[in-house]
């Protein structure tokens, strides 16, 4: 029978099927961080059980860590307590732990691939919904709740009904200034934040084939924002080249064998999906969001839709625009902004910093803009320096911070004040996501760069 990439990976990890119930699903790799794991470890204690496969779990501190002065003790006692709890649990159960200050430390979804922990055909979970990022390698990866973190620690399995399958095909040629983030925001604007609910997506078509691994990660990362549990892309030579030689990637003969297997991981020609979406690359413009969910996005040259043009409740829509301080039919270009955030597991990789730097090169940061440039990991940070990007950024008036989730969810001090506008390369523009009352405009690194330079929303294509 013809099967999809998703079927192949899923079916090979089902330990047992429960009648009128979920599958018992085996997890190859498990990432944990300080925020969603403490209660899971507490649960183990209460039950008097231990971790079944400590070598399959990887801990990193990222969500609430400061992005300056990481060598100093963490000032916020609650954050410090969570970091300590993670460190202690990791030590107690023999789990690898890349804590604050460790040279491998960074955002969980950045360091996983960087170190070859993420592999094609693997099943990967983490108590963070953007675990979908790892799907870029042809893995099934998705976010789980804390009860499930406990399940994985205790038994390396979770109970999951198999999701339905959806394929999103993007073919054609992307216009200049349109990158992976724009492709993803465009898809979400078409599907809305619930259009993918109940599905697992596969991204196919020449646009994804031509995309770098970093770009594929950006796209898969945002799968959850259309409600899908995750998204994946068939592994190819680019995937193998990216992984070869990385810390946890197979070596020698095991590598050759692995690649042989990975080459079989693709959707059969006549496999059937429950839902299919076809998009022309030429239709996609540099994107910006104007509302309070990632589905509320438009091309930068467009006006904000009127309430009667959108699906769903008018009241919810108007509430959202009121929160943003925008009106129906507003022009986006030229709107003044206050903050720029380059970073997060969506756009905190080296390619994102290259793209940002390319635009700001030889220009100056606008005086009215506070910019936070936060690399996704220490490895990215080192690369920024090595490639000379830092010099260019510094000359343009930018400061590079230390790695972490930072203003993506504003659990640390990187908070956008109430009423202020932030052009952010992260993944969520929910009310208060970047701090109470903050107003987030999601965009690509080059859109963020254009805004940082001009102090207002600017079509980045004008700055090439």
């Amino acid at each position: 029978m013809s099967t999809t990439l998703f079927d192949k990976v899923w079916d090979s990890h089902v330990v047992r099927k429960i009648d009128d119930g979920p599958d018992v699903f085996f997890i190859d790799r498990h990432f944990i961080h300080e925020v969603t794991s403490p209660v899971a470890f507490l649960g183990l204690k209460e039950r008097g059980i231990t971790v079944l496969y400590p070598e399959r779990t990887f801990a990193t501190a990222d969500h609430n860590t400061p992005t300056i002065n990481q060598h100093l003790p963490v000032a916020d006692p609650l954050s410090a307590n969570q970091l300590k709890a993670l460190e202690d649990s990791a030590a107690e159960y023999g789990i690898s732990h890349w804590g604050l200050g460790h040279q491998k430390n960074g955002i969980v979804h950045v360091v996983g691939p960087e170190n070859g922990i993420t592999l094609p055909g693997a099943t990967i979970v983490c108590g963070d919904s953007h675990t979908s990022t790892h799907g870029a390698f042809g893995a099934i990866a998705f976010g789980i709740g804390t009860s499930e973190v406990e399940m994985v620690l205790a038994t390396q399995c979770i109970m999951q009904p198999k999701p339905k399958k959806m394929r999103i095909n993007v073919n054609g040629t992307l216009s200049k200034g349109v990158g992976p983030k724009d492709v993803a925001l465009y898809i979400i604007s078409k599907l809305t934040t619930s259009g993918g609910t109940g599905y697992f997506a596969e991204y196919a078509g020449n646009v994804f084939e031509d995309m770098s691994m970093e770009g594929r990660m950006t796209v898969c990362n945002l799968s959850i924002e259309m409600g899908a549990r995750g998204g994946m892309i068939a592994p190819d030579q680019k995937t193998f080249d990216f992984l070869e030689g990385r810390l946890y990637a197979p070596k020698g003969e095991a590598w050759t064998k692995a690649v042989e297997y990975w080459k079989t991981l693709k959707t059969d020609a006549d496999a059937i999906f429950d839902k299919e979406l076809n998009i022309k690359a030429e239709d996609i413009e540099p994107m910006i969001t104007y509302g309070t969910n990632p589905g509320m996005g438009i091309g930068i040259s467009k006006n904000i839709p009127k309430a009667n043009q959108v699906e769903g409740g008018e009241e919810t829509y108007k509430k959202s625009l009121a929160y943003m301080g925008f009106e129906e039919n507003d022009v986006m270009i030229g709107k003044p902004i206050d903050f720029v955030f380059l970073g997060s597991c969506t756009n905190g990789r080296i390619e994102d910093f290259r793209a940002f730097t390319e635009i700001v090169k030889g220009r100056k940061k606008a005086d009215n803009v506070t910019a936070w440039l936060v690399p996704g990991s220490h490895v990215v940070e080192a690369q920024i320096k090595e490639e000379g990007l830092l010099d260019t950024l510094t000359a343009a008036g930018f400061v590079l911070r230390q790695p972490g989730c930072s203003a993506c969810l504003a659990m640390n001090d990187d908070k956008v004040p109430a009423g202020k506008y932030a052009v952010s390369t992260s993944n969520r523009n929910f009310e208060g996501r970047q701090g109470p009352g903050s107003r987030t405009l999601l965009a690509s690194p080059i859109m963020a760069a254009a805004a940082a330079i001009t102090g207002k929303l600017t079509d980045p294509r004008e700055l090439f």
Partner: protein
Amino acid sequence: MAYDKFNILTSSAVPLPIENVDTDQIIPARFLKATERVGFGDNLFRDWRYHPDGSKKADFVLNNPTYSGKILVGGKNFGSGSSREHAAWAVYDYGFRAVVSSFFADIFKGNCLNIGVLPVQVSPEFSNKIFAAIEADPKTAVEINLPEQTIKILQTGETETFNLSGYKKENMINGFDDIDYLQNIKEEIVEFADKLPY
């Protein structure tokens, strides 16, 4: 953590007819710093419920004494966004035992089931009927019968059935959780793991 058993719940309901209620509204990230599962109810819908100075926002439904009960009725696409189970904990800790919506985000729904809050997915029409019934009479009682898988507006008698897998239903009725199940088949899991490439 084993949880409360769920059988038949009859209660008035709290209406929140807003769409796409995301997990950052249910519990903002800055309240995720606990290392124990206590006290999250105080921060449920924090920024909709309180002004920055801590005073209550009078127009928010949880601050309106007219509405109370163990059932929260939300708008479409309830619980979208993050995987934080804290959102489900906050709903539970506040005192809700069931959430009704015409559409749930996947992870939130799963998290609720894992901690003993019943997500009841109803048709958009039925959801509208409940909102209308509560508007007409805030004390309207809603009955959720898990064994029968029905939800009923008692005043009007209008009823709808809802879906839940047989496995999860048994768990909810008995207060079992998935770890109990998984612990019992550990040998099978280990055998399975031994055969995997990595």
